């Protein structure tokens, strides 16, 4: 079973690295999709089936497509950056910060005794249970989430449509 973990992790990491390093934007998105699938696979591995399905449905089905649309609407269709520099100014600073963060997290995790924890028994949470708590104990956050999503939807439409509205 460890092997499953290692394989999936390898896929996920490769997807992430490619998504962040490739020159061609569309390739980046495809790599990102790979990464999303990897994460979903991890969820399945962790017995969180529902989350895995949601992950695919939402990220692959929605977010990735959204990003693709954004690329199509903003870049030259081939999605290549041309010969232009892909790295922004002060990129070394970014890399440095990332490395520092990674090292610190690593150190913290290494030190934490919780980290040695091994899975005990099966943590099963049926969809029904999730639904239960969602509409009983967490109903207020749930509603707030609904409001947030609606607001985001309307906001996105308004922002993106601004120009057409002006044209009318």
């Amino acid at each position, binding site marked *: *079973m*460890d092997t*499953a*973990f290692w394989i999936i992790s390898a896929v*996920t*990491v490769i997807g*992430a*690295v490619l998504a*962040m*390093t490739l020159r061609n934007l569309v390739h*980046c998105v495809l790599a*990102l999709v790979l990464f*999303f699938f990897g*994460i979903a696979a*991890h*969820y399945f*591995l*962790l017995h*969180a089936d529902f989350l895995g399905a*949601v992950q695919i449905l939402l*990220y692959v089905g929605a977010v990735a497509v*959204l*990003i693709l*649309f*954004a690329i199509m*609407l903003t870049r030259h269709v081939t999605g290549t950056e041309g010969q232009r520099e*892909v*790295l*922004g*100014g002060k990129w*070394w600073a*970014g*890399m440095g910060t*990332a*490395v520092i*963060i*990674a090292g610190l*997290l690593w150190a913290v*995790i*290494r030190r934490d005794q919780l*980290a040695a*924890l*091994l*899975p005990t028994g099966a*943590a099963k*949470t049926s969809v029904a*249970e*999730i639904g239960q*708590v*969602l509409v009983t*104990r967490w109903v207020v956050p749930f509603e707030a*989430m609904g409001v*947030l*999503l609606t*607001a*985001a*939807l309307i906001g*996105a*439409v308004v*922002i993106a449509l601004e120009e057409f509205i002006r044209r009318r």
Partner: protein
Amino acid sequence: MNVPLSYYLMLSAFLFAIGLCGALSRKNAILVLMGIEIMFNAGILNLVAFWRYKLFATPSAQLFAIFAIAIAAAESAIGLALVIAIYRQYKSVDVDEITSLKG
């Protein structure tokens, strides 16, 4: 399935760093957003791992993940809409060129 929790934490820390790296150093705004998405996912992976290793009260732990995913979705929608609007304005999505807010 008997990998210790630390593996998952390490993995998500690593992914987080990768996303951060990209978000901080890439030039294209869309890629920055993608990096942020990666960071989001790394965090959510942590939550699920905690749930699996029974550090949270089940099943509420999964709800954290669900809420986080929903927020990430909203964030990406707004972010991309903004990118498109910015592109209309500047004819560019290069985060180094969009500096008209400089004091």
